């Protein structure tokens, strides 16, 4: 029974790419070190890397180096190439090793891909899926640990997915590949080893649908990416203290499932938004504004956000821990949101 099948978040992502690429010969996959030992096929030295986290190990052997293509360190160059190639009828999965490199590849994505459909009067689309890696907690330092999905969500024309479970990682990636427009998927490096139920067959999780991860009645906790797991820990503690929390996993920032969020807030009257990204002009503030706008009459306490601290991601483990949102931060925010003295 496939229902019992559990694989990791990383395996789910690979499975999505492999199955979809086997099914659809129009898909190519490009990125830095996604294969490894590029050009050394005849010596048996290729496919020796598989991306920084081994996600795509084996793919170039299975699908060929003409479809799984290693790129030089030229983020702007190959990302721009992916953008235009994906307008010609082929579909491109382009991996950006860390989302911190968005500053390098960003021009082609945000000034190029994002604007194409609009500019062409709706006739041209860019069937591009960018896979990139976000998130802190692994002491990778300030250039490899940021969570930059808010930047992408700011630009009209880019869809933004932030899956938190292996199931969503596979289903949303397949949906992204099949989507007509550019999608950036922010994979959380701290989740690659998380295991969960993933069906073996191909399926999609539609972009733009939030998920109620836990039903509750007293407070709505809106989460993104890894914060789901931190919030679930907080929820257990809150339950012991008589607070029933409803946890909503946003899953997709663009398009955004406003209804699930608003309906939940109308039900509970209290809201805490938990976002690993930074506090200003962010997904968290955006959702707070949405809640204030669409459900103000139901709000019965302050709208609280829990985010990382507004500083570069520090390296030292103690500092990084302090920087990231914690279970305690969520619990305290819930207390404030529900008008309890902490």
């Amino acid at each position: 029974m496939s229902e019992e099948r559990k694989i990791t978040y990383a395996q789910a992502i690979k499975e999505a790419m492999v199955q979809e690429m086997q099914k659809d010969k129009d898909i190519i996959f490009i990125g830095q070190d996604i294969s490894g030992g590029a050009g050394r096929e005849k010596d048996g030295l290729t496919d020796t890397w598989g991306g920084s986290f081994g996600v795509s190990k084996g793919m170039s052997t299975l699908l060929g180096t003409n479809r799984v293509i290693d790129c030089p360190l030229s983020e702007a160059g190959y990302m721009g190439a992916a953008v235009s190639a994906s307008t010609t009828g082929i579909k491109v999965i382009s991996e950006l090793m860390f989302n911190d490199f968005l500053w390098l590849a960003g021009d082609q994505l945000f000034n190029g891909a994002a604007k194409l459909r609009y500019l062409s009067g709706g006739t041209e689309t860019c069937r591009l899926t960018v896979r990139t890696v976000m998130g802190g907690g692994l002491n990778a330092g300030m250039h490899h640990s940021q969570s930059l999905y808010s930047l992408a969500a700011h630009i009209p024309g880019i869809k933004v997915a932030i899956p938190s479970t292996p199931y969503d990682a596979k289903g949303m990636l397949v949906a992204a590949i099949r989507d007509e427009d550019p999608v950036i998927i922010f994979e959380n490096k701290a989740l690659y080893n998380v295991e969960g139920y993933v069906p073996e067959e191909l399926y999609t999780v539609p972009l733009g649908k939030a998920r109620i991860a836990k039903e509750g009645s007293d407070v709505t906790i809106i989460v993104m990416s890894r914060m789901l797991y931190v919030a679930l820990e907080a929820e257990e503690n809150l339950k012991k203290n008589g607070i029933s929390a409803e946890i909503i996993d946003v899953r997709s920032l663009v398009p955004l499932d406003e209804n699930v969020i608003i309906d939940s807030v109308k039900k509970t009257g209290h809201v805490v938004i938990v976002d690993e990204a930074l506090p200003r002009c962010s997904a968290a503030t955006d959702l707070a504004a949405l809640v204030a706008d669409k459900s103000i009459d139901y709000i019965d306490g302050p709208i609280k956000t829990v985010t990382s601290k507004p500083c570069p991601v520090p390296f030292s483990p103690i500092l990084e821990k302090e920087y990231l949102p914690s279970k305690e931060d969520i619990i305290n925010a819930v207390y404030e949101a529900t008008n309890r003295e902490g």
Partner: protein
Amino acid sequence: MEKISIPIDRLGEAYEKMITIRKAEEAFEKVYMDGKIPGFLHLYLGEEAIASGVCMNLKRSDYVTSTHRGHGHFIAKGSDIKKIAAEIMGKETGLCKGRGGSMHMIDVENGLYGSTGIVGGGFPPAVGLGLAAKYKKTGQVSVCFFGDGAVNEGTFHEAINLAAIWSLPIIFICENNLYAQSAPQEYHQKVKDISKRAEGYGIEGETVDGMDIFQIYKASRDAVERARKGFGPTLLECKTYLFTGHYVGDPRNYRYKKEMEYYKNERDCIKIFEEKVLNEKLITKDELMEIERKVERTVDEAIRFAEESSMPDRSEVMKDVY
């Protein structure tokens, strides 16, 4: 060509720099394997001659921009190895109080304007430092270290062209170790000698053996001299090889075994130096061993210092945020 470019009285210094980097990196590797260093660790083992040879021609006030593989540059340029060790371990006594770690260090006091986690991130800053030196007429030079992979970044082109047209006192040092992470140079670029690219920008370019500190010393000495005199930038390529993987833990399956053995056994920059100075009887074996013992003590002390140092206080996280 001068056979022994380094003045006799500075041979000990050259050896000390190289062997310090070697011993320190080996010590860091061990501490990392013991689980005492968080995050990634990119080592400089095998490339010691480059940072040492180049930095011997620099003053403390001269500028250096580094890479993600920067420990060697910091040690050679005169950073306190204790503070480097402490930074790598995320301690409060580190160069950056534990905020940056191995890949993100700065030491402005010693002219080090930073290692970086972004490949190609050091090119434009090197131009700015060279521009400032030229504008202020300080006689400083700016040295930019980078690898063969970084040459494929757009910043390489933009920065080197700026340096060329403004005739800035900059030396671009390419540490060509034949690999950009797992991508072999023959795959990631069609040009073999990266120094040839200098011609495209109208500047001086030269390729030297990056395992021979004497060649590196001479070429960089000449480049620094040209820069100080206002003759503009140089692109100096040093062909080298990394004895370890891209980072600690990389099994190097994309490389040829023979290639790794060849470089380790026949092209080790420290062995090449030792053979040369001993053959020419410029220095005795005892003298070298004494330097080595002294360096071992220094490195041991640095590791101990770092291990005994405290982690930063949690309250430090928002300090210096404005």
